[in-house]
């Protein structure tokens, strides 16, 4: 049911206004999506170089040449930074959130369209700035994506720590500003632009996930921005916020009295919520897809909402578990450890509810569903190693080993990316009006799932065996040479998995132009984006305002002619309507 809108928004004319500096949230969402797609291939290429170098350290690669240890550290730094900021943060929230949040709540656009456009282009500038770090004198920084001082705070600390590091920090600061603008827009839109009948507890779980992610972003990115400003001041103005008295290459630096731990506190106060900024939208879309393709209401909708809120809340109280090795008080370590393990409770609730949704369901195993199930699998696999690392005594052993790398790649990296794949396959028909190829989608899924497990599961064994991270050559360390066969397995798996991503890209672009035409609601879903035309018109609902009568997951309703009821379906409203 819809009421006529009083005012029609006119679609912009002209290429520049329509596709470049567009105010349309859908175009901006696609811009974010393609920016993240570019970034993920850059990040993936860097990881491929690293994996090849680890197994064949003397290899001379085309275009790149021989990778020296400092180059390896630069690749590592840039891979982590690009992936965390410009992929894991950009695509789920900026891309899919921008495109679908307004439609799913029945709004014609985001609350502040100009700010939305500014947010994207600021992100774009941030990406250009960080890529520029490769091409300046000294090259890209080598301090890792966590940017720990004093290495990151002293220009003469190493190659890449000059202009490259300045560009790195500047890029992150720019990204923070962009994310803050985006978060402000998401929150205002969600709170103030919901359609009639769209109560908070009728919002799809995707909307809840973007909403909570926006809260986290609003509170976390400001802290990282402050930390980055202090770092820039230490580097360029001679202050000593982070740098104690240090001697580099026999020279006493001018800094004194600063604390590297101050950076760690500020960074991880942002850094841990950032994990949830990356993963929460994946949780949202997984819930949406599992319910849709299981043809059942999501198991425990309210519990899912409260679990996400709890995860977001607890996420701000556990940053110290990244710093158990810093010499913190055992009492503090105990508190951080306990709070960290508390996150396991809402995480387990979500997992239980996902399984409950699929239990005894007539599941439709389309590609989005496969990826959603893959997300659950990776979330569990990666999440189970979390409580290990949350124990200070275990963390002291496992800190800075491949165990940690395996853990966060599964839970934060690959799981989040599986969420993005699920979202892409699920919403592609709505975004582009065509269907993606199912067969190639499944091939892509199985190679990627098996491949990622082959890459990241062995890392846990490596870590337990004492395999340290961030070493560029394990062949030079006696006890680590015995672990090289595992590295070889991981590298072969990485090459195959990365190659398989071209299946996805070819499928994406081929389907965009040649895929079979999609109907308005090909998956028989219930939420608002499936009530409008495909692709949606400029004002989303073609001049009408949707009115919502139901929750988002009315599947398998007994006695219904179809096995689902759209959120806008007024048919079940009594005669009083």
């Amino acid at each position, binding site marked *: *049911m819809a*009421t006529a*809108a*009083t*005012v*029609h*928004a006119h679609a912009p004319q002209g290429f520049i206004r329509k596709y470049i500096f567009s*105010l349309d949230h859908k175009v901006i969402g696609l811009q974010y999506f393609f920016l993240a797609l570019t970034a993920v291939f850059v990040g993936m290429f860097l990881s491929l170089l690293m994996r090849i170098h680890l197994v064949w350290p003397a290899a001379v690669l085309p275009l790149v040449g021989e990778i020296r240890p400092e180059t390896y550290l630069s690749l590592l730094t840039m891979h982590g930074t690009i992936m965390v900021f410009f992929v894991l943060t950009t695509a789920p929230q900026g891309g899919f959130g921008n495109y679908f949040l307004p439609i799913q709540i029945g709004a*014609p*656009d985001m*609350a*502040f369209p100009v700010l939305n456009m500014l947010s994207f282009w600021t992100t774009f500038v941030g990406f250009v700035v960080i890529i520029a770090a490769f091409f300046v004198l000294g090259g890209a920084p080598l301090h890792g994506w966590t940017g720990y001082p004093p290495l990151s705070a002293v220009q003469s600390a190493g190659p890449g720590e000059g202009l490259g590091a300045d560009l790195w920090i500047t890029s992150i600061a720019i990204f923070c500003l962009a994310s803050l603008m985006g978060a402000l827009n998401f*929150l*205002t839109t969600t709170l*103030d*632009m*919901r*359609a*009639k*009948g*769209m*109560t*908070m507890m009728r919002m799809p779980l995707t909307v809840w996930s973007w909403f909570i992610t926006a809260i986290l972003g609003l509170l*976390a*990115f*400001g*802290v990282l921005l*402050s930390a980055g*400003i202090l770092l820039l*001041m230490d580097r360029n*103005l*001679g*202050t*000593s*916020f982070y740098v104690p*008295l240090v001697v580099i290459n026999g020279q006493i630096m001018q800094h004194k*009295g*600063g*604390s590297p731990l*101050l950076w760690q*506190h*500020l960074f991880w106060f942002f850094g841990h919520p950032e994990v949830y900024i990356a993963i929460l939208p994946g949780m949202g879309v997984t819930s949406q897809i599992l319910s849709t393709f299981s043809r059942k*209401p*999501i198991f425990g*909708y*309210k519990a899912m909402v409260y679990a996400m809120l709890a995860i977001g809340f607890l996420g701000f109280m556990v940053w110290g578990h990244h710093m158990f090795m810093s010499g913190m008080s055992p009492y503090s370590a105990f508190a951080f450890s306990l709070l960290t393990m508390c996150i396991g409770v809402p995480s387990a609730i979500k997992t239980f509810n996902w399984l409950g949704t699929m239990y005894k369901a007539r599941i439709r195993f389309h590609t989005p569903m496969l990826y959603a199930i893959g997300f659950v699998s990776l979330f569990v696999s990666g999440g189970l190693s979390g409580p290990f690392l949350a124990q200070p005594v275990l963390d002291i052993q496992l800190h800075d080993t491949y165990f940690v790398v395996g853990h966060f790649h599964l839970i934060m990296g690959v799981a989040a990316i599986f969420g993005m794949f699920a979202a892409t396959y699920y919403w592609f028909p709505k975004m582009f009006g065509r269907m993606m190829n199912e067969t190639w989608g499944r091939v892509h899924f199985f190679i990627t799932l098996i491949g990622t497990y082959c890459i990241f599961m062995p890392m846990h064994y490596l870590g337990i065996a004492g395999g340290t991270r961030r070493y560029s050559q394990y062949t030079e360390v006696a006890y680590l040479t015995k672990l090289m066969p595992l590295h070889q397995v991981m590298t072969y798996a990485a090459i195959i998995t990365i190659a398989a991503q071209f299946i996805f890209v070819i499928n994406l672009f081929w389907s965009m132009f040649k895929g079979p035409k999609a109907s308005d609601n090909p998956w028989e879903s219930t939420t608002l984006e499936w*009530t409008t035309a495909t692709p949606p018109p400029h*004002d989303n609902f073609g001049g009408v305002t949707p009115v919502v009568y*139901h*929750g988002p*997951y*009315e599947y398998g309703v007994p*006695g*219904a*002619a*179809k096995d689902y009821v759209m959120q806008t*379906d*007024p*048919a*079940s409203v009594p005669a009083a309507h």
Partner: protein
Amino acid sequence: MATYTPTRPVDQLGHDRQPPSPPLGGGGDDGRGEGSPNYGVRLRRARLGMICAIATICMVFVSLTSALIVRRGLPTFDDASRTYSRDWGGVQLPWLLLEINTAILLISSLTMEGARRGIARRAALAPVRSIPGVSLGEERNFPWLGVTVILGFAFLVGQGIAWADLRSRGFFVSTNPDSSFVYLFTAAHAVHLMGGIIALFWGITSLLHRPIEGRRIVVDVVAWYWHFMAVLWIYVFALLAFAR
């Protein structure tokens, strides 16, 4: 759509076992985007956005404050004497000048409030004025916004003088940690205030030909921001005083 005929009571639909609500339930919006003349909705939305912006600025200053607290308590290793000592203290701020600046900013907050109330009143009366034959008499409009901008600039100039005074006495950004924080906090506040001044300029100039209701939205949210800047400065001022 609308092909479903329920065979069950409607209150058994949905996860929350609540009946489908009529159109008036839930939802927050009845405006239709930028083309909408519904200024009340747009004002509410702009205020909500401003609250979010203020929240994030608060996080910036909270994190800077935590850095100050941590850094203030840290001992410094002196290489010459091979001992630890405290390197905090020594900056003599030009308190009188800063107090004058504080007064200027507080007065500007009052003038900003005058502007906000004035334009709210004019916006409320605009529909009445537009009725043919109705006259409410000539209203003298005090240039509150212009005065606010001038006072804002005066505050920034005052801050510049304070920095010059510090430099003349040998306190630079890197002289010692407390001088670093003095420059950091005052500059961070000044940058944010500059943002408010730019918004006011935009409000005064670019929106001249817009309906008064549209201008009222800009002035209203900038007023919120401006008051927040005044409160934030009081906080910074107190922090610098207590952290000596």
